[in-house]
């Protein structure tokens, strides 16, 4: 068992994690620990989990994504899973892992947009919204 760590990049209030290798138990656990530590130390409010490099998934990964999102939520950080490829989405759905309660976006850019809306909505009131509520955040919840 190697003690590899998946790099976590910080961009302002957001953390970006790109998963490019096959996840196994130890790696997933390490990632969870690293992420929670980083959220605590940086005060980040949003996490982007980029899985655009993954061609295949198994149920382990599906559950891992859910778990990480839940843990981050407890640390007051919102998680968005981005870049899920079509075959991966189909596989997860077929396995019955539709990841309810996990925010998703097509790519990092949209994911960041989504997080910004979400954070502005629940955080400081200085961002002007044109009357209607921020539907994107609401729908996915």
């Amino acid at each position, binding site marked *: 068992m190697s003690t590899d760590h998946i790099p976590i990049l910080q961009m302002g209030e957001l953390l970006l994690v790109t998963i490019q290798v096959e996840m196994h138990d130890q790696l997933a656990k390490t990632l969870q620990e690293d992420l929670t530590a980083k959220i605590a130390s940086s005060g980040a409010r949003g996490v982007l989990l980029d899985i655009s490099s993954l061609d295949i998934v198994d149920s382990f990964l599906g559950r891992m994504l859910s778990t990480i999102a839940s843990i981050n939520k407890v640390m007051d950080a919102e998680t968005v*899973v*981005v870049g*899920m*490829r*079509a075959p*991966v*989405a*189909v596989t*997860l*759905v*077929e396995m019955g892992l*539709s*990841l*309810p309660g996990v925010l*998703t*976006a*097509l*790519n990092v850019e*949209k*994911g960041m947009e989504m997080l910004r809306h979400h954070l502005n909505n629940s955080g400081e009131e200085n961002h002007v919204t*044109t*009357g*209607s*509520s921020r*539907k*994107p955040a609401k*729908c*996915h919840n």
Partner: protein
Amino acid sequence: MDNLSVAETLDEERYKSLFEAMSEDLSIYFLNPKGMIESWNKAAQKFKQYKAHEVIGKHVSMFYTEEDKKRNAVEQEFDEALKHGRYEGGGWRLRKDGTRFWEEEIISVLRNKEGELMGFVKVCRDATEKKKQDELIAQQKLDLIELSTPVMQLWEGILALPIIGTLDSARSAVVMDNLLLAITKTGASVAILDISGVPMVDTTVAQYLMKTMQAAKLMGADCIISGIRPEIAQTMVHLGIDLAEVKTKSSMSRALSEALETMQLTIVSKNGKHNGDSKHDVTRKQEE
């Protein structure tokens, strides 16, 4: 097909004329236990283009394609025939001029009265036309499914999928594939699935729809179901189909309105004059 008992009931002359009659359209020839060709008939010559002296004594695999020879197709067919008494199947075969044709065949086992293996008899015919038609029908079926599940982009980021016809597993697989492909290509955030053309929605159909919407959501696109007819709404509730998480609208226009709302877009009249609906839309946004 027990040749020995048939021979017992018919006299030789009638047996021979039966054989001749069948020989016009059915390729019939005897093989020894090793697969060497022992006889030939009219139809065999017609289909395979070889004359009797060119094939007798040769192994039956001479008509088989390279791929079939590589995977020992002939041995497999013989094994199958020996196990069950006969083998029924088909495959691509080669004529003398090298061209291919699709052959449907029956290989029967011949045993003498003591039960010893005497060889095989192969009855086959050229079924290339039928195979072509079968393949055409299969292809048309796929084409039909493709044609009846178009994906249209209504606006930047908004897709519409009018689904026409019964939503079975094949169709729903195509809908899901087409939708996910469109999301990847256009980066859409909202997809409107219009089911006014779907005659019946039961639990299975509802499941197909749910799966499709879940997969789309994993790729960051929300789905709205539109075109729900009154009967469908009643059926779904009676069946206890839970659409709690799903946005449903009765018409495409309402769905589009909802989609625009999700995308934070609003339609504004150019000349400032408000006719019924647009005024309604603009006002609603201000009131919220």
